[in-house]
């Protein structure tokens, strides 16, 4: 198995209101094509770890490597470019840009990456939307969709640049059981059919148990892996 993400001895401290170690020597390896779920009690540091893994948080000790690149110590601009090409995000609150259509929302990261022509990007975006069963809404304003539909648009957007890894902080946290199941099925299919790597924080035990790899955190440490 080929590791796509590894951390070595990641520590992180918060200094406000007082010094407090939120992550304690995290050593994590995520393999390619793996559907990993991160669970743990509220406040144990799951989100904090996700921000470190996502490269958005650079204020930590230890090392982070994704897709063979050492990311620790890189500049903000380099990291932004890296995220654009290698990481897709799915958030709890779908966070689509409300003034843009569904299709435009999916296209934006690809336009930023500028690897394909505009026409190709549009075709690719339509393919992703079709795969997620929301292609008939492509021209609608993104704010006109239901929560579950918006979350699927967000997944399409996360997929548009064929990222090495998709990260989600409670991607189903805001969805009902029907849509949660739907998103879970999509994630399963992505990992099994398309060898997509996914890391998702969740509070949903059923969701976690069905994933390939369940990682449990407690008090800033990985306790079960």
């Amino acid at each position: 198995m080929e590791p796509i993400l590894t951390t070595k001895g990641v520590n992180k401290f918060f200094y406000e209101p007082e010094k407090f170690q939120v992550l304690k020597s995290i050593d994590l390896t995520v393999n390619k094509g793996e559907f990993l779920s991160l669970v743990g009690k509220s406040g144990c540091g799951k989100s904090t770890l996700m921000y470190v893994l996502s490269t958005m948080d650079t204020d930590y000790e230890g090392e982070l490597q994704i897709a063979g690149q050492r990311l620790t110590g890189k500049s903000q601009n380099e990291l932004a470019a890296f995220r654009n090409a290698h990481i897709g995000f799915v958030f709890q609150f779908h966070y689509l840009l409300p003034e843009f259509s569904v299709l435009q929302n999916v296209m934006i990261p690809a336009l930023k990456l500028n690897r394909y022509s505009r026409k190709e990007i549009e075709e690719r975006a339509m393919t992703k939307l079709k795969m997620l069963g929301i292609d008939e809404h492509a021209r609608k304003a993104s704010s006109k969709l239901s929560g579950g539909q918006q979350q699927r648009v967000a997944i399409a957007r996360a997929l548009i640049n064929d990222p090495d890894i998709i990260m989600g902080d409670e991607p189903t946290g805001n969805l009902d059981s029907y849509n949660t199941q739907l998103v879970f099925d999509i994630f399963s299919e992505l990992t099994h059919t398309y060898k997509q790597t996914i890391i998702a924080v969740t509070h949903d035990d059923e969701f976690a148990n069905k994933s390939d790899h369940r990682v449990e955190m407690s008090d800033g440490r990985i306790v079960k892996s």
Partner: protein
Amino acid sequence: MNRQSLKLSMEIARVHLVSKPKQTIVAMLGVTFGIGMFIALVSLMTGLNNFTEELTMTASPDIHIYQEETSSRKSILEEINPDGLNLVYHQKPKNETTKIRNAREIARLINLDARVLGTSPLVSSQVFYNYGPVQLNGTILGVDILDEDKLFDLRSKMKAGRLEDLLSNHNGLIMGKGLAKKLNVALGDRVVVTTPLGTTITLKILGIFQIGIGVVDNVRSYANISTVQTILQKDQSYITDINVKLKDRNLAPLVASELQSKFIYKSEDWQAANATYLTGSMIRNIITYAVSFTLLIVAGFGIYNILNMTIYNKMKDIAILKAMGFAGVDVKNIFMIQSLVIGFLGGIAGLVIGYGLSFLISKAPFNGGDIISLDHFPVNFDPMYYVVGIVFGVSTTAVAGYMPSRKASKVDPIEILRGQ
């Protein structure tokens, strides 16, 4: 790569602008109002300034040479006995003549200077004009009317009669329009002119001129040099003033000081003669720019506010864009572009409105009364001010937009995403 990012930032900026049309238009109106007022104000002010400057120029020579009347002088006692204790009570001024000696020779020498366009030696005197029961105070200038025409373009200022008629008639007079109106005289009438010495002469009105400003038109008339010399009981060499016109009016202070040191007589340049007018025009300019600048600053604050509000409302979008890989500079561009577009479009609209206002003002009737002959406002349509206006407007919005845009570029996405 970079160009593509810029294009994308522009696209996002455009969507932001059109998705909130009311807010965008309000921000633009601030700039439009500022620039529009600037154009209207500056067009009117510089129009008025140019107009009055032109009038002043037609009324005053570039350089005026005359004998300055000395008001205080040493008593003879002091001259003879400089170290003594001298007391002279009620010393009267000396009866000095205001004559310029060798005036024609001086005029000829000045004419030789390459910077000089022409000279006009003349005799001036205070006089009373009598017509029937009306008696008015004024001045009479004895001139070579053709020389004077060369300096002041009198021909174009003639309202009745011809300049040439004066050449052939030694008892003729060309009178200012305001003076003629007050005396109630017309072409061909005869007026009695009384000098300070008490001599009188009857002169026939051969022409009526109007320069356009009351201080000239209401008091002055022109006659031949010999006529004025005669009524003042002076000989043919009696000349009181020399007017000089230069090729470049701006050289006047320099040339005037040269002439003064060369010929001793007082040489006054037009800038010195019209110091009050020049200060006035400078103050008008300062006011124009101060008012316009204030308006634009206010518009700038408006843009600053609106952009700050937009950015505050778009925090989540900014966070998500950054998470997806937009660099700080891309985010900054999105908002800078918005403020520049607001500034540019608002500015262009301001130029149109400013032009419209200036046009309306230029058509508005305005009565200058006796002071200035004016029937509507003079407005300056110099394109330079339109360039200044748009540059001014766009730079104000750029400055106003810079701070919020920079703030947006510094947004930490984690803080926003965690907050939810």
